[in-house]
């Protein structure tokens, strides 16, 4: 009886081909795993696993190349958009993406981010913004909210001495080199679906040679924020989203 059920038309779920079988090292409740999965599913659905080259950052997702089952390069801290530029310029026909956190993309790598986007490199930049340095143990990030506590802002981020949280995505959207800029999240099933649609669209656009596609995913960091996963998602909705509102920021002109 059960054998008869295993037929293609009955398939409701299968393993994501563009992800490996390795166990993710991310903390329980962290958004990275879901974000990885959505990007991998987008790659699967477009059938471009063999034509994709990814660039991993330095940060929590430094080992992203263990989880994505595509060819990948590990970049120095903040340099992923430059590495991706090198790849895309010699392989213009490949799909090239970077996967970066807020410290990597918006602090140490700000110049590389802005200039790759300004040149309109035909790459996808996936930007995970959780407002904290997760891997090094919860230090202040460029996107840490005003008043938010971290191990290097123990009394809360004081914008007078530490600067304001950087809305790099809005800044990027101003550049003529960017084609599609959006901000999403992966904390509810509906948002997960939206994120996946955005990632898939961004990869598809890469074939048009119209410029950089930039997908920010506002995410949580239960360990760095010192909250349970549920608390962290609630805190994210109440504090992160008002400052980093979800939705498309720049969409291709019809």
């Amino acid at each position, binding site marked *: 009886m059960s054998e008869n059920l295993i037929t293609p038309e009955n398939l409701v779920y299968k393993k994501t081909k563009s992800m490996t079988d390795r166990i993710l090292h991310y903390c329980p409740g962290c958004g990275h795993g879901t974000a990885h999965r959505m990007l991998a599913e987008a790659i699967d659905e477009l059938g471009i*696993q063999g034509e994709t080259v990814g660039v991993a950052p330095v940060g929590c997702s430094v080992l992203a190349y263990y989880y994505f*089952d595509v060819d990948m390069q590990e970049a120095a801290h903040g340099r992923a958009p*430059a590495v991706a530029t090198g790849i895309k310029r*010699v392989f213009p026909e490949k799909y090239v993406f970077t996967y970066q956190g807020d410290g990597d993309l918006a602090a140490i790598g700000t110049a590389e981010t802005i*200039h790759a986007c300004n040149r309109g490199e035909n790459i996808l930049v996936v930007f995970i913004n959780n407002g904290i340095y997760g891997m090094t143990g919860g230090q202040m990030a460029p996107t840490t909210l005003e008043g938010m506590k971290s191990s290097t802002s123990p009394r809360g981020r004081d914008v007078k001495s530490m600067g304001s949280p950087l809305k790099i995505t809005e800044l990027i959207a101003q550049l003529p080199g960017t084609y599609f800029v959006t901000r999403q999240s992966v904390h509810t099933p509906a948002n997960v679906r939206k994120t996946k649609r955005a990632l898939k669209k961004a990869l598809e656009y890469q074939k048009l040679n119209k410029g950089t596609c930039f997908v920010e995913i506002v995410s949580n960091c239960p360990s760095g924020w010192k909250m349970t996963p549920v608390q962290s998602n609630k805190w994210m909705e109440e504090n992160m989203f008002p400052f980093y509102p979800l939705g498309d920021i720049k969409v291709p002109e019809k």
Partner: protein
Amino acid sequence: MKGNEALAEAAIRAGADAYFGYPITPQSEIIEYLMAENPEELTGMVVLQAESEVAAINMVYGAAGCGKRAMTSSSSPGISLKQEGLSYIAGAELPCVLVNVVRAGPGLGTIQPSQSDYFQAVKGGGHGDYKLIVLAPATVQESVDYVKLAFDLAFKYRNPVMILSDGIIGQMMEKVELFEQQPRLTEEFEWATVGKKPNKDSVIVTSLQLQSEEQEKVNLRLQAKYREVEKNEVRYETHNCEDAEYLFTAFGSCARITRKAMEMAREKGIKVGLLRPQTLYPFPVDAFHQLAGQLKGILTVEMNAGQMVEDVKLAVNGQTKVEHFGRFGGMIPSPEEILNAMEQKIIGG
């Protein structure tokens, strides 16, 4: 042709796939020449002006990781900025060529020629135990020939190769014979990220190891490679060494001036020879070691405060006296000064 321009032409002819650079004196002619020649039309070679030296070397990393012939160039302050990327390239065992048209430092220094980046070039430069293969041209012709050699060595050993030029070689004009246009690479290397092949593991270009045991294995593999390089790739030139009682040694542009000093010494009846290392890493250790027995002394002439002299001393290992003579800060020694230093420091000293 002008040294820098000849070198740029050699990059096109060597079948380079990509050049990423950032302007800095005295080497900006390299990127200017490449932009003007537009090799993208001729051979498909990519030429891109990066936003910084840091970005340029990381673009090289990306292209090299795809198994392509990638190259960058700069001058001393810019080469310092590239050290992070170079360390990653060496760690990930990627092939690439970089050119340092050296100017005097430290800091912003002057734009005048110098050899003060010797240590940085031959001892690694960035963090971690690694080596660059370092070629030191003394002529515009060698600047050209070494570009091709550098790409060959880079791919033979999957290691970054530096051409250590200086403001003299880069800026002077000489007659030069250009080699024929070489085809660009069509080979797909199994270590390169070209897109995952069905039924094969994905390719990962990285210098990261989480376990010390694994990192030590990487270091041991690198060291074994460097021993091979030391065995196979030493290049140097000798003049009048057969009957020499004294020896000059110098590299690059300084070796040309030193050669004149040697000829002047010979006219005075002083039996002096010249050894010019063409590879600074691997260093011609055996050549020095073998010559040392017949010598009463060696004078190392450098446009720095004494850098190669340390490697000469290590090679000679106490067999004979070794002294250094240098001008620095962009000052260029005259043959008379050099001969005088030989007479004062070695013969009379």
